């Protein structure tokens, strides 16, 4: 079983899991073509 210290760590990690970083957080601002994620059709290229 997890020690108390690790239980608390898990709680904090779990809370953070619900607002994870998004790709644009680590990228310079793109003034003209900022990221605009969209669920494109699966038959379009994905990479």
């Amino acid at each position, binding site marked *: 079983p997890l020690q108390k210290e690790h239980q608390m760590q898990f709680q*904090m990690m779990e809370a*953070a899991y619900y*607002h994870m*970083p998004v790709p644009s957080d*680590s990228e310079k601002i793109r003034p003209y073509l900022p990221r605009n994620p969209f669920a494109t059709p699966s038959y379009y290229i994905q990479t």
Partner: protein
Amino acid sequence: FEDPPDLYEKTEFLLREWVSIINSPNNKEPPSKAFSMFVHQMNVQGILKTDDLITRFFRLSTSMVVELSYRLLSEQTVTTSGQIRLKIYHTLDAYVKLIAMLVKHSGDTQNTQTKINLLNKVLGIIAGVLLQDHESHHSDFQQLPYHRIFIMLFLELNSADPVLEAFNFQILTAFCHTLHILRPAKSPGFAYSWLELISHRVFIGRLLQITPQQKGWGLYAQLLMDLFKFLAPFLRNAELAKPVTFMYKGTLRVLLILLHDFPEFLCDYHYGFCDVVPPNCIQMRNLILSAFPRNMRLPDPFTPNLKVDMLQEIAHAPRVSPNFASMIQPLTFKKDLDSYLKARAPVTFLSELRSNLQVSNEPGVRYNISLLNALVLYVGTQAISFIRGKGLSPNMSTIAHSAHMDIFQNLAVDLDTEGRYLFLNAIANQLRYPNSHTHYFSCTLLYLFHEANTEAIQEQITRVLLERLIVNRPHPWGLLITFIEMIKNPTYKFWNHEFVHCAPEIEKLFESVARSCM
């Protein structure tokens, strides 16, 4: 505490001023010109008068931009999320620009010490604000402002600039030191951002590729160990919660990048990593142990009649960090160990060995695994030196009947099943690419199998090898050749053992592996 009466207002005024200078669409001046005027303003406001005031200024401004981020994030909806984030980026990026320019222009151009002192101060302040925020907001902690500040500041300070290049290694050291302070065990609410920061392509490139003479490797290894140590308690459970699975998968991706692009790094630091990766994380450990130098061509382990003893590479010792010999504690134990290895006496050393390794009676945490790993590798490397000192090469004959093998055989016999499992794991952790350690420990494992006085020892050796083989790829070369030798060579009478036929699934597994070998 006790900020000067109007410092908050002055800081707020200056920060607003700077952010609007940087972000104003009407601003025609490049940031460098605006910076000179701004520094003058800071002087006029008295901010740069003393070290104490500078420190307070950065603390207050960091808190202000963080508070703004929290405020904006609380206002966001699903549809406005992108716009809100953009607003946050604008403010934080401007603040980062200020920090970067203050660092770059601090003191004389030649005096890098002033600059690095300022950077260390600022990073320390941001880390302190983060830790305080983490403590007070708890599960409402938002990682975004700190994530953005750290990554943008890192990118700014690693841009192509001769002034910054002159002290780039100190910049990297400062960031690594700060990230170590903020390691996931200390700020778990920042863990995902932390992993994203240390696996950023520019961060990896700077530390592992660009910095000369591999000076960045030790810094990066420390961060990876911080990551593994954090994950270890959660990975010990067979069933992983979603947040842990996500973090684990992200870690696997980073390890794959390292295995592909920097295998020598994993080779050099494998020992420290395996010391902290839990024993049940078999695939992750295999990933680390599968690394081999890119200029090496590994012979196919399934080659019929492969003469491992004839390979040139087995004469060469791999580099190992950290210094595992220093991990054998206490010093009195190390002294007794060295005495025994030298004199092969007193015999009481062997009977007392287990008590040095056992730390509690609680099942599952009985043994000092780090000490056991260090003991195994130390004794093995001493054995190799001893054999070579006699002008011989390690093989099934020369490794036998020595103080070193006494210790290994004693551990195999005297430890309980848990201790023996951990002991055999320590040996199996050295089964890697062709080198003197892989060869010695492969022979040792086979020797222990052959000379075992109980079938339990043979069963556990088989268990340790098999569980590393049945996972998805990759598999270390040394693991494969050891297992193949064990099942192919009639000397070991492998197929005669009861445990080989104990269940249809096990029998099928062995037969399937044997078919690939033969």
